[in-house]
């Protein structure tokens, strides 16, 4: 009994989780198993009561699934009612109808039980194959004649759908990094200068810095010069600017915001 092991038989049936069952047949089969019921002698009364008790505990994701469970419930109730009412000898047709229904239900249950066993057999096979790797792609050029039996209209349909959805999908908007504020830049330059005597302007704007950042950096440098915190040199035209710390300037303890006109997160807008 391979499948039974996957479902722990519980004495308190109502504690079963929603979504444990794949459908009404699965639930019914589970009830039969937990009660050790022979499928060939389905005790309709007991099973109907238990089934209905479960039904109340289940939550359904969609109407169709709920419908499938309810149809089964109706069948069971009908069969149960047949047992409660004493057989009417005058109406054999009705009796046969009920019996046929019950027969069919048993047949379906048995078939489903078989499928479950096969499903777990397949699962074991799959588990074995999961330990094995083969080539998935070949470097061989594709054959001149593509075997058509492996293709289907469904693949074409999927390809088209994929194309359409790709077309429809809007390209991601490029998000501009928020330009650094002038004050932040000034602080950054002073922080670097705390550890070194001088630095090159290019080292501040190197890497992937964008044009607005270069502008902010230049403004920051100019502002720091105006405040007397740094000194700059440019040895040749278009050459690199050397930034030096000014020891004679006001100390680090003077807050940058004290007399800066451009303070308070002034930013330079993207010039593009």
């Amino acid at each position: 009994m391979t499948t039974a092991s996957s479902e722990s038989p519980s004495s308190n049936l109502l504690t079963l989780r929603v979504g444990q069952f794949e459908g009404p047949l699965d639930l019914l089969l589970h009830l039969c198993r937990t009660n050790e019921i022979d499928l060939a002698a389905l005790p309709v009364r007991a099973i109907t009561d238990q089934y209905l008790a479960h039904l109340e505990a289940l939550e359904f994701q969609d109407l169709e699934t709920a419908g499938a469970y309810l149809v089964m419930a109706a069948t069971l109730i009908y069969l149960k009612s047949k047992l409660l009412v004493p057989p009417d000898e005058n109406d054999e047709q009705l009796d046969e109808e009920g019996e046929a229904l019950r027969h069919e239900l048993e047949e379906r249950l048995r078939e489903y039980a078989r499928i479950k066993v096969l499903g777990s057999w397949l699962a074991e096979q799959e588990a074995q194959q999961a330990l094995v790797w083969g080539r998935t792609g070949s470097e061989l050029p594709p054959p001149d004649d593509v075997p058509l039996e492996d293709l289907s209209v469904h693949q074409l349909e999927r390809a088209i759908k994929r194309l359409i959805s790709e077309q429809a999908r809007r390209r991601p908007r490029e998000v501009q990094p928020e330009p650094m504020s002038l004050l932040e830049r000034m602080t950054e330059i002073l922080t670097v200068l705390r550890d070194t005597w001088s630095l090159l302007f290019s080292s501040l704007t190197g890497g992937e810095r964008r044009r607005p950042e270069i502008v902010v950096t230049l403004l920051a440098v100019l502002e720091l010069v105006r405040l007397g915190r740094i000194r700059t040199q440019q040895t040749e035209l278009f050459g690199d600017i050397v930034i030096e710390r000014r020891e004679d300037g006001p100390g680090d303890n003077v807050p940058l915001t004290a007399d800066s006109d451009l303070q308070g997160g002034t930013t330079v807008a993207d010039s593009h």
Partner: protein
Amino acid sequence: MPTPTDVVEALLFASDTPLEAERIREVLELGDTDEARALVDELRVRYEKEDRALAVVEVGGGYRMVTRPQIAPWLMRLAKTRTKARLSRPALETLAIIAYRQPVSRPEVDAVRGVNSEGVLDSLLERRLLRVAGRKEAPGRPFLYETTREFLVAFGLRDLNDLPKVEGELVIPEVGVAPNGQAQAEQDPGPGGADVTARS
């Protein structure tokens, strides 16, 4: 000079789908497919004798070179994964129905499972474990589905005959059994009643 067995080894290495004996015969210009099979067997023996990391298996109507299961722990580390993606229980049961009854339509699958199988079928088609085999001449002309070669490969089957035979048909009880609704456990051969034995 490479031996024919060496060539077969290279053919299996280069192929991403199971290589049929007929194709090997064709490429090596052999007399018949039995010769091709003999070469594959030779290669197989060589691998086994040398305790190699690779093995030759027969799946999906052809031969395939795969790693031995014992190597799996290292391959999983290489792939940085603990397990390969596995199919869900509904997917496996749907596959089982179709494997045994193919070609089969969705309403028929639904009837066995007792629930709608549309989503499951779609994902199985997507994974190419199923394909459409045509339409059923019935109301609505529903699609008929059948399993693919990928199905056989994924489950390590040579062909559909490798599927286990279903045994243990239960005797349908006589009319009017169990009128009192009691479980008749004493004669229970096991709920489900279906025994599965793998075909050798």
